[in-house]
């Protein structure tokens, strides 16, 4: 067993909080730069330029990319040969969030109860999803997710015999009706299969993929391209002011499901796609 102190995890999480909120990932920046050239509409071009300039200011001056520094999502791959010394991993991550948000002047966006709505004042609790894997390392990926784009997500239980057409219609409906107000250009994570609970997690995990990555299954890789083309022909454009850049990527992830079920989940991510990873 490899011993890792819980403080080491907290400090790593603290770093992730800063890194994700101040640095737009390189693959997202590249895609934005490409689309500035492709866009013909003036508003669309101007907005994409503002987004790129914003990323430069955020990185250089360590000002958050967006005031919505998000609900803290963590996707952890925990090696089975790791022994965590001290506090448990959930405590360690939440402590890191608390330190990271306070230390970097990030916004506390979490309320303790959906009815009472009192701010917890340290942006905890985080959502923590742990997969046990082989090895003796911990890989932590942080995805702070803004509320505006989260509100545009949707889930539907389709009828199995209807097949792909229904999936496509549902996804396009979600983007047209709700995604347009969720700060496009979007990144769209699709989960299909599993059940009510697992499909939404699948769609969220799809958002961790890098722009230009393809699904390993050729059928889904083709559908990802097709959906991206359909969505970019809706003339929603950056900030819903028209243009070709409605989405930067569509990522589909699938898993086995019940004979009676056909769950589909759509996770909408705004252009401020903040993610960072660390391996301990």
């Amino acid at each position: 067993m490899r011993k890792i102190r819980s403080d080491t995890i907290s400090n790593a999480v603290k770093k992730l909080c800063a890194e994700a909120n101040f640095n737009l990932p390189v693959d997202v920046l590249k895609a934005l730069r490409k689309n500035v050239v492709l866009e013909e509409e003036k508003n669309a071009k101007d907005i994409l330029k503002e987004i790129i300039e914003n990323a430069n200011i955020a990185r250089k001056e360590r000002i958050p990319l967006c005031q919505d520094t998000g609900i803290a999502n963590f996707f952890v791959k925990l090696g089975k040969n790791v022994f965590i010394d001290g506090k448990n991993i959930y405590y360690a991550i939440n402590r890191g969030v608390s330190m990271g948000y306070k230390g970097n002047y990030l916004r506390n966006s979490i309320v303790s109860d959906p009815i009472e709505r009192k701010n917890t004042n340290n942006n905890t609790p985080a959502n923590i999803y742990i997969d046990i894997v082989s090895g003796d390392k911990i890989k932590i990926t942080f995805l702070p997710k803004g509320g505006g784009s989260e509100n545009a997500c949707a889930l539907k239980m389709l009828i199995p015999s209807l097949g792909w057409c229904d999936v496509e219609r549902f996804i396009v409906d979600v983007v047209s009706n709700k995604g347009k107000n969720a700060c496009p250009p979007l990144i769209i994570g699709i989960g299909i299969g599993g059940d009510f609970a697992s499909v939404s997690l699948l769609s969220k995990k799809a958002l961790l993929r890098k722009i230009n990555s393809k699904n390993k299954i050729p059928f889904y890789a083709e559908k990802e391209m097709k959906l991206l083309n359909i969505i970019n022909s809706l003339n929603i454009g950056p900030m819903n002011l028209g243009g070709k850049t409605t989405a930067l990527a569509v990522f589909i992830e699938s898993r086995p499901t019940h004979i009676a079920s056909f769950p589909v989940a759509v996770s909408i991510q705004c252009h401020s796609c903040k993610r960072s990873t660390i391996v301990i």
Partner: protein
Amino acid sequence: MKINVNNLVLNTKILRYGQKIFLSGAIYTARDGAHKRIVDMLNNNEKLPINIKNIVIYYCGPTFIKPGIVIGACGPTTSSRMDFFTPRILNEGVKVLIGKGTRTKIVIDSIKKNNAVYLIATGGVGAFISKSVKKVDLIAFADLGPEAIYKFEVENMPLIVAIDSDGNDIFARNN
């Protein structure tokens, strides 16, 4: 086009939908929590902490201010969550709304009726927008944290006119 808040609140007709403007002057932040509280206070005939007649409201919950800077990230939040409260707020005299995204027909009608105007800022560029803010004061509802009311003195804040005082809507093509 450069626009001053003091001129705009007295004559919103100077703006037409689709125009790109640079706004200077005092604007007040208020998002979900502050809207709810303002409308509750109005319903209970309580005195508001600020006079909202002829003011500009900005749907924004900024990050904390780190030492040495005026304000942290301070972009707009989704306007549609405020739609429920907006007609009441406009009837009380608010003249200019700043946020992002579409509004309902009820809000558009209310903007027209009250000679108001709805402006949009680019969402997700809070660091970029922070450069337009020259001074910040906490005005009310400090207990709401990021949802408190702040007064921002802005200089050349880049905005687009989304709904003008005649009810023309920049988003109409997609609705």
